[in-house]
């Protein structure tokens, strides 16, 4: 039984290693994750850095009506650049809607008159909320205008002999306890998505080729006339699939370890702390899901008529374990004992914990490993049962 399993496993691995298509797609999958991740991080870093420091150019209509405000904005690195080619708010709105201008600050006609009185002087910010890039800039302009208003208000109260504190009966202080690594966790959460994907897709070709592919090429039937049990043959194929999944996971992790060290995470005020120990623990945490993936893929591919049909089904299988990860990232789900029963979600939560630099809860790890392995064994057993049927020959 074991000898058969190993013979089948060895032959499937050898055959896959000789399949150029399989190796190319494996390597491509390996590089894709770290590459996409590097681009993602660089873009985020650029956006954050530029938003905080870069000079911001906007158009101010009626700048001459509020020279002090304009000077205040200038001190905050917000500059009035272009001469406006429109005369009122409607004209500005048209220009922004057309995409000719990002942000326009319109100083009201009555600004100078109202400013000295008890009337509030009006300033209008014309923007397009549907543009992400504009939002952070608009935030800056709004903050600067508010600060100017506060300053003027405070000065006026002082001038009238009242304490500025009268206007602030309540003070809200924020106290942020997140560690730098904790802040990077959201971004690095994407990492589990890539790791799970790399693990499963690593075994994709072999799972299909050794089952649906073998039947399509008519080599399955003679194989089943040999004095070996079908269970041993199928388990050998699953083991080979598992082998490629684990190799794929290990290589992807190594690629991440290598590329994360070169990403400008410190510029975001984050430390990724993705050291060797974290990498090894991540490997150990994700590994238990591989048998489940191998069993499920082999089961489905075994009953697909052709390689192409199996490929179609298994593409969906690749998406299934990534869904809990997506929801967990979006909803900011915290690790909890009852979630550790769910394969892929439990791995995601544990890896996120690791990346945040927090200690793993042993019972959580145990539950995650046990439930993934148990489910893998169940699906594997089901596959060997179904493999006894004549329908396997197609």
């Amino acid at each position, binding site marked *: 039984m074991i*000898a058969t399993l190993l013979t089948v496993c060895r032959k499937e691995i050898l055959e896959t290693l000789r399949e150029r298509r399989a190796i190319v797609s494996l390597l491509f999958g390996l590089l894709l994750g770290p590459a996409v991740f590097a681009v993602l991080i660089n873009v985020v870093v650029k956006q954050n850095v530029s938003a905080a420091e870069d000079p911001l150019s906007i158009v101010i209509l009626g700048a001459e009506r509020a020279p002090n405000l304009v000077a205040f904005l200038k001190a905050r690195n917000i500059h009035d650049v272009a001469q406006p080619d429109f005369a009122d708010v409607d004209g500005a709105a048209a220009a922004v809607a057309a995409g000719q201008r990002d942000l326009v600050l319109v100083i009201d006609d009555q600004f100078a008159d109202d400013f000295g009185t008890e009337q509030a002087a009006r300033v209008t910010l014309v923007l397009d909320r549907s543009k992400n890039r504009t939002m952070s800039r608009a935030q800056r302009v709004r903050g600067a205008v508010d600060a100017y208003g506060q300053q003027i208000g405070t000065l006026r109260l002082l001038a009238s002999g009242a304490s500025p504190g009268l206007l602030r009966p309540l003070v809200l202080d924020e106290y942020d306890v997140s560690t730098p690594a904790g802040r990077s966790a959201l971004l690095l959460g994407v990492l589990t998505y890539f790791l799970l994907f790399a693990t499963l897709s690593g075994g994709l070709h072999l799972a299909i080729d050794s089952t649906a592919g073998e039947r399509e*090429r*008519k080599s399955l*039937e003679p194989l089943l*006339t040999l004095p070996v*049990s079908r269970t041993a043959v199928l388990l050998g194929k699953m083991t080979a699939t598992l082998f490629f999944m684990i190799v794929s996971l290990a290589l992807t992790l190594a690629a991440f370890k290598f590329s994360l060290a070169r990403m400008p995470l410190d510029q975001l005020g984050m430390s990724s702390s993705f050291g060797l120990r974290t990498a090894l623990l991540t490997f150990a945490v994700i590994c238990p899901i591989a048998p489940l993936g191998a069993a499920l893929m082999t089961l489905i591919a075994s009953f697909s008529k052709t390689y192409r049909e199996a490929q179609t089904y298994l593409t969906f299988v690749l998406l299934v374990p990534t869904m809990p990860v997506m929801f967990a990232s979006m909803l900011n789900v915290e690790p909890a004992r009852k979630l550790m029963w769910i394969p892929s979600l439990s791995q995601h939560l544990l890896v996120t914990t690791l990346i945040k630099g927090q200690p793993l809860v042993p019972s959580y790890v145990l539950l995650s490993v046990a439930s993934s392995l148990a489910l893998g064994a169940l699906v594997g057993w089901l596959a060997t049962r179904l493999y006894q049927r*004549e329908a396997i*020959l197609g």
Partner: protein
Amino acid sequence: MIEVDGLHKQFGAVRALDGVSFRAGDGKITGLLGPNGAGKSTCLRILATVLEPDRGTARIGGVDLAADALRARRSLGVLPHSSGLYQNLTARENIAYYGRLHGLPPAELERRTKDLLERLDLGAIADRRAKGFSQGERTKVALARALVHNPQHLLLDEPTNGLDVMATRHLRDWLRELRAQGRCVLLSSHVMQEVDALVDELVIVAAGRVALAGTPGDLAARFPGRSLEEIFVEAVGGAGAA
């Protein structure tokens, strides 16, 4: 010795076998003859233990397939309809893979492989991948693979399909050699002339039943003045009408 008794097999609404019985003796080449769809392949697939009959029994070397298929397979070599070689493995690796699954010890496996490669004149392509093999080369390698464990019984499904004249002649020579070694060879075919030149026993199958059986000599004596082909057409036609 292969013994088949009252085999029935139904696929959905199609009755593939409707009570087939025959014997194929040791030291003989037995030909399973019939038109396409007569049930030859189904019969061979049951004997190869990949299908199970709905009713009836099949024995190989005295072992009931329903009782102990695994044991029966040890004395069984199968040359399937299409060679079913692994394209990315060499001829030698294809043969060795089956040898290992048969549980041959490494030394014996090496000796057998070398022996078969020599006997079937495969030396030149032994270490080339099966991807580029001609039909004749594929059949030869598949035959070597089926013989790697030195089986007493050999099943061949339309073995000369797609072979040229020379390759067909070689195949016949090897089959005669296997017969001389006292093996039980059962092959299927729909080509009358081929069977006539090779087999000792004929089993003509039509519409899932045995229409006629006997040695070519017997049949010629029973239907004097008629060629084997005429006998075949009549047997098949009669069964088809019934």
